[in-house]
């Protein structure tokens, strides 16, 4: 029972580099999310998707892009990495609707130097 799987778990990027965080879920959930968590802070929504082909911005979308070509996959692209993007990134999914319980992946630790 894999649930939500994220890769890589750890990554160090140089300023200006780009990379993609991969996320896949096997629960056939329509809704998927990317959150980031900075030290001592709560989770902040970057982007979300309510189904294949549909994405929308969350609270902190700047510097990121997403795509949703299939129900299972929701990659997060970082373009021109900056130190402010050093954070822990969590992918999540849910069925949506009332009483929405969101299921999280284990996280990806990203450091930009």
């Amino acid at each position, binding site marked *: 029972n894999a649930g939500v799987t994220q890769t890589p778990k750890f990554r160090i990027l140089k300023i200006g580099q780009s990379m993609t965080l991969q996320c896949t879920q096997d629960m056939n959930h329509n809704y998927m999310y990317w959150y980031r968590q900075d030290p*001592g802070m*709560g989770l902040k929504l970057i982007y979300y998707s309510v189904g294949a082909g549909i994405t929308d911005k969350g609270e902190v979308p700047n510097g990121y892009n997403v795509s949703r070509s299939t129900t299972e996959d929701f990659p997060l692209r970082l373009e021109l990495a900056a130190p402010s993007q050093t954070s822990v990134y969590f992918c*999540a999914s849910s069925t949506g609707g009332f009483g929405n319980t969101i299921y999280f992946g284990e996280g990806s630790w990203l450091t930009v130097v």
Partner: protein
Amino acid sequence: DQQVKQNSPSLSVQEGRISILNCDYTNSMFDYFLWYKKYPAEGPTFLISISSIKDKNEDGRFTVFLNKSAKHLSLHIVPSQPGDSAVYFCAVGDSGGGADGLTFGKGTHLIIQP
């Protein structure tokens, strides 16, 4: 401006005693409320939830209380066990709003002392 506030960054409780974690929210449109537990180097995991039509929900050692008039919810853990040491996030949702997931508090680090 924080919509969800967990005012205690950390809480230390003796094993066997009751742990009470608190959460305040500002928007009366929120109508379901969840608690997540997070261990270091892992993702948050769902613990317990409550909808606005109830004021209490129990699941084993965990009980969530909701006071809608005060816009306050709390999580009670009794008796507290060493494995309960973790960061606990309060999360709120609005079923009538958009699909943009949940709004989270900053978390409370619960430490259970032997």
